């Protein structure tokens, strides 16, 4: 049962696989992007849960309370994830912009139709 104790990792794995499945199996480009987003969010969750220290409190040191003896959670993974969230949003924005342009150029956003219109050679 030890493996079930780290349930946060199971959540991450599950989310990641759902996202990856959507990217691979869906034909609609926007759905693919949603899957990609879930894939990235799973990694963000992984980092955030990694920073949690059992019994730890928010890593803020008030002026009047001494910092010694207090257990803090690790703030670094959270800070890293701020950057990763920005990256994810930027990727989503570029991806959606591409979908809009694809829709303008082809009149469809279904991958199988796009492939047919591109011809077998590409």
């Amino acid at each position, binding site marked *: 049962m030890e493996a079930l104790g780290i349930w946060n990792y199971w959540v991450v794995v599950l989310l990641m696989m759902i996202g990856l499945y959507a990217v691979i199996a869906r034909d609609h480009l926007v759905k693919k992007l949603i899957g990609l987003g879930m*894939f990235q969010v799973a990694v963000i969750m992984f980092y955030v849960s990694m920073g949690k220290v059992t019994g730890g409190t928010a890593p803020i040191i008030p002026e009047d309370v001494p910092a010694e003896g207090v257990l803090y959670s690790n703030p670094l*993974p959270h800070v890293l994830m701020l950057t990763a969230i920005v990256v994810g949003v930027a990727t989503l924005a570029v991806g959606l912009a591409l979908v809009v342009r694809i829709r303008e150029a082809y009149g469809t956003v279904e991958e199988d139709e796009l492939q047919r219109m591109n011809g077998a050679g*590409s």
Partner: protein
Amino acid sequence: MSEHLSALIVVLPLLAAPVCLLLRQPTLVRIWTSLVAWTCLILAWTLLGRVETGGTISYSMGGWDPPLGIEYRLDALNAYLLVIVTAIASVVFPSGTILTGTSLPEGRQHLYFAALLLCLAGLLGISSTGDLFNVFVFVEITSLSSYTLISLGKDRRALTAAFSYLVMGTIGGTFLLLGIGFLYQVTGTLNMQDLAVRLPDLLQSRTVLAGFAFLMVGGSIKLAVFPLHQWLPNAYTHAPSAVSAFIAATATKVSYYLLARVIFTIFGAAFVFDALHLHWLLLPLALMAMFAGSLAAVFQTDLKRLLAYSSIAQIGYMILGLCMASEAGLTGGIVHLFNHALMKGGLFLAVASIVMRTGSSSVAGISGLGRKMPITMAAMVVGGLSLIGVPGTAGFVSKWYLVVGALERGWHFVGILILLSSLIAVVYVWRLVEAAYFGEPEHEVCDVPWNCWLPTWILIGGTLVFGFWTEVTVGGAAAAARAILGVTP
């Protein structure tokens, strides 16, 4: 001031990109982009000189000392790579063909140059940082700007190519992030040097192994190692011609550097090759890339797609150098990185000139162009000879070192396979020569103006010069190989 150079080289193009949006006027923006690229080249050259004389340069970003702060660490390998990337940028950005094959309307072109500068900033960032998370951020900066650049191709297929690249690239980038997370979880540090100190005691941990696997797969997607290369041919084919030249000559090289850094600096060759035997996985993949890439190139009807498949084969050669994990092998891999950047950059620029004049990049379309566009086609032929590895060209030098490295390790069959796959390159280069010089001209065109053929010839001329004068390229690569292997000369 001068101690800030290693940060300046990344910050300069990053800050210069938004300035493009303020300048707007097309000519001004083009001059500005070129100036930035040239300044970066001068900075990179200065840094290389400093590394050669003074050894590794460590720079603490914002005054925060490593391992807590972000460290920019330049050794012989980084500095060498910085020179390659900035040199290609300085040649490609001012080229007269820079806008060939773009779908941008008049008045929006400054955005294209901004994206080029961002891409350059990202590439330089990956090359100079010593912090793993920082690597991820710069990888994403590079990737996002290259998706944009690729989508700007004239053909609508550029859009779908860019989208597939976006999906593949994001999965690759996320894998990198996950790998970095695993390593951080175990070691509590993100600094590469610090990781290298802490990891040897933890190599039995399954988390570290998983982290290593994710880093390798993520890096391999970005490098387009066979069989993870699916995004590359479409992306290179449909991107604007100059973008193909720039990305083909720099982005894959930087990803190669990343893999080398992860393998040799962070994990160490002893773990990767002696304990994990990674070369028995990478070696067959590299050999398959050499043959599959070259064979696929033979059957292409589009010049850019042909060059893209040839790139996959050339990446195979570089990976081969990585697998050998010896000084000769790595020198060969790194020299090939330099030489391939020169010849592929030059060849794609030559194709850009052809597209500019004939409007298409089909192999049939260059029929008889040997007489109509002699300067461009001559560059194409020399570049092709260098791809084959004919003595007297740069391609020969790198293949020589790779064969020497293979024989040194006792892998005689690999040496033979390198030569055999070069013979396939003869076939696809010959197809170009045959079409260009023995076909009947279809287009009534004249050669391109000097600002288009000169950049092509600077790179192609480079392959000739460095085919004989190997002091700088091989010397620099050998120093880089020693630096990364931790061998003192």
